């Protein structure tokens, strides 16, 4: 057991756990935050995707000790108090989720993609999303929703009228 500190969804946190335990089980079993899912345990499916300093990682295959001092973000941490993240909003609008079990991971991968590439091409979407399996087969909608989220986010960033970020419909 070892004491480790990091930030989780913006909150500083100190835990006392087996440092070799994968981050996934710290999040799910110790912290009881269940939005991050267990799918394969081997880094093969992406269901457990979270962000480490903004980059997507597979938390099932990432030891807690490697997160020490870093910023971790989970699906619970991407919406603001008042609004869903544009990716979540686009997902909801396009009825992406079926069983929904893979979608936390899909969304975390998509959020990271859009943060680094605000207007991704299909090839960039392919590359960023290849690690996330959806057994229900929602891929066609995931692709569309990422494009949709890109345009929603663009509107949020640029509102020439007020100079503030707002949410608005774009067709």
């Amino acid at each position, binding site marked *: 057991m070892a004491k480790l500190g990091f930030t989780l969804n913006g909150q500083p946190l100190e835990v006392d756990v*087996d440092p070799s*335990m*994968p981050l996934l*089980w710290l999040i*799910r*079993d*110790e912290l*009881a*935050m*269940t*939005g*991050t*899912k*267990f*799918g*394969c*345990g*081997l880094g*093969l*499916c992406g*269901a457990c995707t979270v962000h480490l300093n903004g980059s997507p990682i597979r938390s099932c295959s990432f030891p807690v000790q490697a997160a020490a001092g870093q910023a971790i973000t*989970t*699906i*619970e941490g991407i*919406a603001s108090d008042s609004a*869903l993240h544009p990716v*979540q909003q686009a*997902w*909801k*609008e396009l*009825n*992406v*989720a*079926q*069983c*929904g*079990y*893979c*979608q*936390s991971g899909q*969304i975390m991968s998509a959020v990271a993609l859009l943060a680094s590439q605000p207007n991704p091409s299909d090839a960039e*979407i*392919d*590359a960023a*999303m*290849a690690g*996330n*399996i*959806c*057994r*229900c*087969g*929602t*891929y*066609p*909608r*995931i*692709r569309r929703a990422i494009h949709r989220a890109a345009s929603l986010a663009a509107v949020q960033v640029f509102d020439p009228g007020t100079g503030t970020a707002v949410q608005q419909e774009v067709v």
Partner: protein
Amino acid sequence: MTLNRRNFLKGTAITAGALVVGVTMTGCGRMPLPHRNAEDLQPSAYLQVTPDGRFILQLAKVEMGQGTLTGMATLVAEELNMPPSMIVVEHARYHPDFADPEFYAMITGGSSSLRTSFEPLREAGAMVSALLKQAAAQLHGIAATEVALIDGVLSSPKGTVPYAEAVSLARTLPRPESLTLRAPSEYRFIGKKMTRLDGEEKVTGAAQYGLDIQYPNTLTAVMVRCPHFGGSLESYDAQAALATKGVSQVLEIDGALAVVAKGYWAARQAANKIKVTWKAGPLEGVDSAALRAERHRLADSEPGKNVEERGSAELARGERFEQRYDVPLLAHATMEPPNALAVRTERGMEIWSGCQSQQFVQGMVADALGISEDQVILHNQLLGGGFGRKIVPDYIVEAAKIAQRSGAPIRLVWSREDDIRHDLYRPCATALMTATIDNGKVTSLQSKAVAPSIFGQFIPLMTQSFMPRWVPDATHSTIGGLAAPSDPSATEGLAKQPYQFDYQRADYVMQKRTAPLGYWRSVGHSQNAFFMESFIDELAHKVKKNPLDFRLGQLDEDSRYAKVLKLVADKADWGNPPAGQYQGIAVHESFRTVVAQVVNVSVEGKTIRVHKVVCAVDCGLAVNPDMVVAQMEGGIVFGLTAALKGEITLKDGAVEQSNFHDYQMLRLPESPDIEVYVLPAQDRPSGVGEPAVPPVAPALANAVFAATGQRLRELPLRLV
């Protein structure tokens, strides 16, 4: 009150599109209604209204992605004249009134949910609406026709009626003898595009699956199992495991070992330290190739059971043309691995898990623990995928047994390896397809399917949970053994196929040696459509006809098959694929829905690339059209995964695959463009969860033939 709904419907006059139906819901008698609350208005098992005006729907058909939650809320909401989002949805417990008329049991499967709920749920909504209006009318001293229920507001010209008063009076009113259902032309929600009711919770991480439920002091259990089917535990040494920090118990459960610890990680670490010796069991030395060779021998030597014969055998004139097809075992691989939380409480065994049959859970857990069925309390949850896997609650029974033995609240978590290696698999199967061709005309079509039987394994489970406890185990397996050789799923889609030839027959030869089997999205259709629609394509080429024209020529012109084929051909621009691409077509009916697809492929070396799938579907009334489209898309991806990658193989009676590296899924970059066209219809829904799966593999194989001239008669498709 006792009118039989179906007969009544037949004889019912339909006035201006509205439908008057007799009331069939029992609402009294045998068993208390689920979520009963004395203060509520609850004229049926499905729907209740609380004194503070909440409308609570019991979700009798589980939500595993296919959209039942939204679909069923839409049906009651339509009759209640309020947006579906106003309906409070609860996961239903077992109740006899929730039995599916097609299964005589409370099961979610067979793509039947909206098909068999279409009348009962609208009736449930109409009944509540009628009673509330009647109560409001009495309270205000006016006629019921003057009362309106709109968007949750109950009002008359004299003002709003508080729910507390209306509900309390409505409870005492006699139930109306007939109900008027809304006319299709008046639908506000049915057939309209809307967002899924579970859409938001599924993008925020708030949606709760079985694995997410928290209970104080829960310990996690993981299993160490014999890899060989039918094998057994010879000896084990759990010392090192028990010495691991956080580990509390290692229990022997049905010839496997359960490691109980604080959290998944500790349990898994400890499980890896157990030294164990297994006995291989009845399939020792048996591998997939041997089972396949056995099927080939059976196909050649056994006449099998005749399932269908149309026309006279003498009409099978001309040259004989015969081909053999093969498909492997397949695993379901639901994204949420099987899991259950089981807790011994003063009420009995309480279980939190996602399953497809609440009734089986009650029956099988009670049977396994030797307690009564009402002591099994299942809190069903959203399912992270089902696809038929979770009809059989073996994982729940396992959790309950561990909890009973351990004494602690137990969360049993199957690893992905457990899931891939201990699934109930889609059967492996062989088909011998035979035709006769006389002067360029196909005169007969015969199929002989050789496969192990799902029935043989499933029927004993069913009878065990439905029949009295004193019935000995041997009786259940005898019943299963009797049913197996005429398992209808083995030939579904081969028998009753729609093409017309002078002579047709279908036979089934059962293979006895088998891995554990189960229902896998679209069941027998998943392989039989591949056999049938590939062979039809072969016949088209044999008689030098365009595969579309050949099909249309053998079909009734006004049939649903011809309609979807023409539509899909038109939308896919059949015959004019983009340069470098080739097309294949297939049509198949399953679960009363007809689906046709055109697949565009290109081939580079040995790599098959799927560019586009165009899909046309006749599913009757689309209650939630966008969810029909989603089910077609998802079914196509599911079917492509099987066609391009899916294969479970056995060695020494054990599954060789273990996780997503060797049991691969289609991924986003490989996922084609998909276009879906839904035939307009007003009558009633058929089914959409499964029917998109069967036609994909043959449409793809037919496209690969067009591209390469190679006729691939085995799944997954591999170019040589």
